């Protein structure tokens, strides 16, 4: 085969795909980017982004427990994440405790349990570190399979509950009066959020997953006029940043989770600047026409 010039755009994109781990990583980035930014849109509009952070930290206890028991870490994380999500909501609603306090108590408690258990394991594993900070290149075929199944479940739930989810995000009281069970929808959203976080743990890690939930949706929220636009742009930004960040981390030999999150932060900054400049220019144009 004839040698080709290196460093064409084609090579930059496709050369790394010789490695099976890179193919899996790109697929995982697409799914995780899409799913986080999809659920993230609801999270941002309902202003519950700190619940995402709380659930992610709480799931650490599940990961360590699963490790000790020799069970798949995804199962441990999923069980504890769902329990933490419902626990936060229960303590908030029934205990008369404010939501940020409920998150603070449960997330730190569960995270501490994880650290406590980990400190007692003498055969310390670097795998746990991967889950804290994310290592998308370490996604196994089995991980990818579980990610696909969980992502399908979450996507199906979003499609079935799409209208109630929008209605309760905007106006839960009126939705409730018209016959929507707002409380139940909230719980289901929390379970979807927990599953989304579990799906994303390998890719971006416990500490950074909240960024992938919030930043793409927040970026889309800067300019989208309608909910559906915000959702679509959020997913587009999420996928682009996840895949772009993955490639950047590959070439820069940097941590993948952090690079993906930095890509979303950079996008947010650029969009914010463009929107502000646009507002400034249109205001000036408005003043000029008025003056004339």
């Amino acid at each position: 085969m004839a040698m080709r010039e290196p460093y064409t755009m084609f090579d930059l994109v496709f050369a790394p795909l010789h490695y099976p781990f890179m193919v899996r990583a790109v697929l995982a980035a697409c799914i995780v980017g899409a799913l986080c930014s999809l659920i993230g849109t609801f999270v941002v509009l309902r202003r519950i982004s700190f619940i995402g952070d709380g659930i992610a930290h709480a799931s650490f206890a599940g990961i360590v427990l699963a490790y000790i028991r020799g069970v798949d870490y995804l199962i441990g994380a999923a069980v504890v994440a769902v329990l933490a999500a419902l626990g936060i909501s229960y303590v908030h609603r029934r205990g008369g405790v404010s939501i940020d306090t409920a998150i603070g108590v449960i997330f730190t408690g569960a995270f501490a349990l994880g650290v406590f258990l980990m400190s007692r394991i003498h055969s310390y594993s670097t795998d746990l570190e991967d889950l804290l900070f994310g290592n998308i290149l370490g996604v196994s075929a089995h991980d990818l399979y579980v990610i696909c199944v969980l992502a399908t479940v979450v996507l199906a739930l979003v499609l079935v509950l799409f209208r109630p989810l929008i209605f309760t995000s905007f106006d839960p009281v009126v939705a409730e009066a018209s016959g929507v069970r707002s409380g139940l929808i909230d719980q289901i959203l929390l379970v979807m959020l927990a599953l989304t976080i579990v799906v994303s743990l390998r890719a971006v890690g416990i500490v950074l997953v909240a960024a992938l939930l919030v930043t793409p949706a927040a970026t889309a929220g800067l300019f989208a006029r309608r909910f559906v636009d915000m959702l679509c742009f959020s997913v587009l930004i999420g996928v682009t940043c996840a895949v772009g960040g993955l490639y950047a981390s590959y070439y820069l030999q940097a941590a993948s989770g952090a690079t993906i999150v930095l890509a979303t932060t950079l996008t947010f900054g650029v969009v914010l600047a463009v929107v502000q400049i646009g507002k400034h220019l249109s205001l000036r144009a408005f003043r000029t026409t008025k003056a004339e």
Partner: protein
Amino acid sequence: MNAVELQDVTVAYGDVCALRDVTLQFVKATAVGIIGANGSGKSTLLKTIAGLITPARGTVRVYGHAPKRCAAATIAYVPQVEAVDWSFPATVRDVVAMGRFAHVPFYRLFSTRDYALVDEAIARLGLEPFQHRRISALSGGQQQRVFLARALAGESEILLLDEPTTGVDAASEDVLRQVVRELVGNGKTVLMTTHDLHSTHEWFDRVIVVDKAIIADGTPEEVTALKMDVACEHGHGHARTIHHV
């Protein structure tokens, strides 16, 4: 059958009693004004009928059923405009369309009829010029009209309006009043709280004065005769029982 019935309803928030022993019947196709000072329990009364608050004692029946057991969208609750975040990314049309959500199952798209009802509601409240405008760019009166349009699109039998005239311009108020009268003409039941004591006869068939309990109940003319007493109450914040109704 009465559209709405309350039997010995008592509502409490913690150990604070918001409404005590309220027994009321509302006949179908009437507009009822619920008048009272801030904190008199008039919004609580609406929320209880909507099924948003469960009474500590007593029963609420809407067409013979508990509010939560009514068919979807039997009841349309129209909150005060401050109740929602208007920076939500949606156009006027998007919000009015939410009124149809209860009628459209998840596996079905909006039908021609759904769209027609949305169009009709938008037109009825004079929102056509703004229908593609983002809701964050609306005035208070326009926001209130959007809320009522959403309720109209839902074809609900019972409409519960919480102070729709507060902070609304005169033009919007006229539109709201006409729509309320039309709804009643079409057989709907409208219950509406207000603290505006003027022109009640133009709005309502019946007026109820609330102060933790029902203290007056009658036609607008009958209650207007008591107006001075009620006004005094507003002025000084004293609870005064009116015996003659």
